[in-house]
């Protein structure tokens, strides 16, 4: 079985976000980058499948050279090789085009990625890739088992879970608890050094959207603490100041 895991290179979840002076780009100064947390779950499940069924796991990232430490970490976690499409991941359509082009050349049984990236939170790349390849795309998948040529999955839906089956190949957007996130061990980190990382120019240049500007949410208002015994004051403030009662 061949698995492609698409990873994003995103700011660590604790980053205090700032933008460049023109408000058009993230200010990357001092920001620590990580594998997208949802992608990390997808990768963990792929590694488990590799151990259970003997699959090969290829990492795909659309990004400039600065994403290579993130790709190496994915290799350290147990992926076999990696492909980097040398381009800024400008919008979902652009990224999906690259994934679909790589997938067409290599016939993967499973294309896994996070349900969404945690920087722009588009959450549509898996759907576009599925459409481009003419295969089913499902998200958010929180459980995945493979039996022969069939994937058995659980998907989160409003107020509950949906259990479903589909034949491979598939594109899946993943989320926890599809697998337990993994920590690379020293042997993995050492072997990641020598695993193949192929750098390819972008397959297509179409970008359908452009960012005009970003805006930070207004700073949080001052918080008022009220003694738990003083319910009257709480009600008074909720009624007369917050006007929510």
């Amino acid at each position, binding site marked *: 079985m061949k698995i492609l895991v698409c990873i994003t290179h995103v700011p660590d979840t*604790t980053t205090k976000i700032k933008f460049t002076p023109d408000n058009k780009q993230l200010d990357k100064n001092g920001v620590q980058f990580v594998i997208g947390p949802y992608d990390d779950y997808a990768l963990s499940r792929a590694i488990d499948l590799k151990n259970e069924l003997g699959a090969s796991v290829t990492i795909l990232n659309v990004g400039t050279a600065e994403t290579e*430490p993130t790709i190496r970490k994915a290799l350290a976690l147990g992926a076999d090789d990696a492909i980097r499409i040398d381009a800024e991941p400008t919008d979902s359509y652009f990224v999906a085009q690259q994934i679909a082009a790589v997938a067409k050349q290599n016939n993967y049984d499973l294309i896994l990625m996070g349900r969404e990236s945690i920087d722009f939170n588009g959450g549509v790349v898996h759907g576009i890739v599925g459409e481009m390849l003419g295969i089913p795309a499902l998200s958010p998948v929180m459980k995945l088992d493979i039996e022969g040529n069939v994937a058995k999955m659980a998907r989160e839906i409003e107020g509950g879970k949906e259990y479903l089956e589909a034949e491979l190949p598939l594109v899946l957007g993943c989320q*926890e608890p599809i697998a337990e996130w993994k*920590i*690379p061990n*020293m*042997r993995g*980190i*050492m072997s990641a050094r020598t695993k193949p990382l192929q750098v390819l120019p972008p397959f297509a240049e179409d970008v359908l959207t452009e960012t005009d500007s970003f805006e930070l949410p207004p700073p949080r208002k001052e918080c008022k603490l009220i003694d738990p015994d003083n319910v009257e004051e709480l009600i008074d403030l909720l009624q007369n100041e917050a006007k929510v009662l």
Partner: protein
Amino acid sequence: MAQETMQFQKKVKADLFESPDFYNIDDLLTEEHKMIRQAVRDFVKREISPYIEDWYEKAHFPYEIVRKFGELGVFGPTIPQEYGGGGLDYIAYGLMMQEIERGDSGMRSTASVQGSLVMYPIYKFGSEEQRRKYLPKLASGEWLGCFGLTEPDFGSNPSGMKSHFKDMGDYYLLNGSKMWISNAPMADVAVVWAKNEAGRIKGLIVEKGMEGFSAPEIHGKWSLRASTTGELVFDNVKVPKENLLPGADGLSGPLQCLDSARYGISWGALGAAMDCYDTALRYAKERIQFDKPIAAFQLTQKKLAEMLTEITKAQLVCLRLGQLMNEGKATSAQISLAKRNNVEIALRVAREARQILGGMGITNEYPIMRHMMNLESVVTYEGTHDIHLLILGAAITGIPAFK
């Protein structure tokens, strides 16, 4: 299960540690170093931080951590991969010790004893058969090891040791006892230093289960409570002749092991200091007194600024020492300076941090008091604070004051 996962994630989230890097020292590390540090930090946040206060309170050594450390690869990281080691450099080893001790000094003690005091002498002084027999199992955590040098009456003066062995033709007959031995009660393998009939110090590999060998636990410690410490007692133990380390002769054998371990401690103590600083900084920004965060007060800022200054200096000492270790140029006196300084500043940082936290600082809601109690062992073991000063004194003047 889902509930367990949620509780676990809550606990993981609670450990927000980030290491300070005021001098952009990260720019001097490789991407691999940073990945190693992050892996060990994530491991500590997942496997140690959520449980350490409970283990500490109960004086419980979590034996399962040995296997987990083995899987992670923190045992013997500088030993070649063909023997199960990591084949990594000394800076990688230091960063691992920093992160583990950031979690707890006792956990770091377990790791540094296994790597520097058990695997290192078997690798450095052992025969090829000994290396193949012991190192892979110690690296994987299948076996736990300990190191027997200190005796009840010989701590800073190990050359006076009484433990001795006799050549009985087919085997060596070992007698004597060792004291304050980390990992001893649970250890499968002990590297024991004892005198032969000619009075030369030699290393012997003693295995659990050998007749006459016991390792009673020392109870009542107020320090390193999550690690296990014991005695080693040898009552006519028949040690096979192939268990003698052929490459070690005299006190320099154990002292070389201690150099490697003390190097790790200088990074480890830095980790404990960082955790205290990080905790105090977060607390100072959140704790309100006189209608403002206590971080706004000059005396709190003084404490934080001095802590960061000492941590930054210690980081630079560690990094340079690591470079010297990688080149095989580090001297024992240079290692003494780093161990002595870093443990001392860690204790000072812990005390200042404790004051910033006020009453909360003495509880196990925060790690500071635990670090402080742990560091009271670290300042004494592997060469006391005073002995390291005298090693420096001897290096400076050429006149040893302790002979």
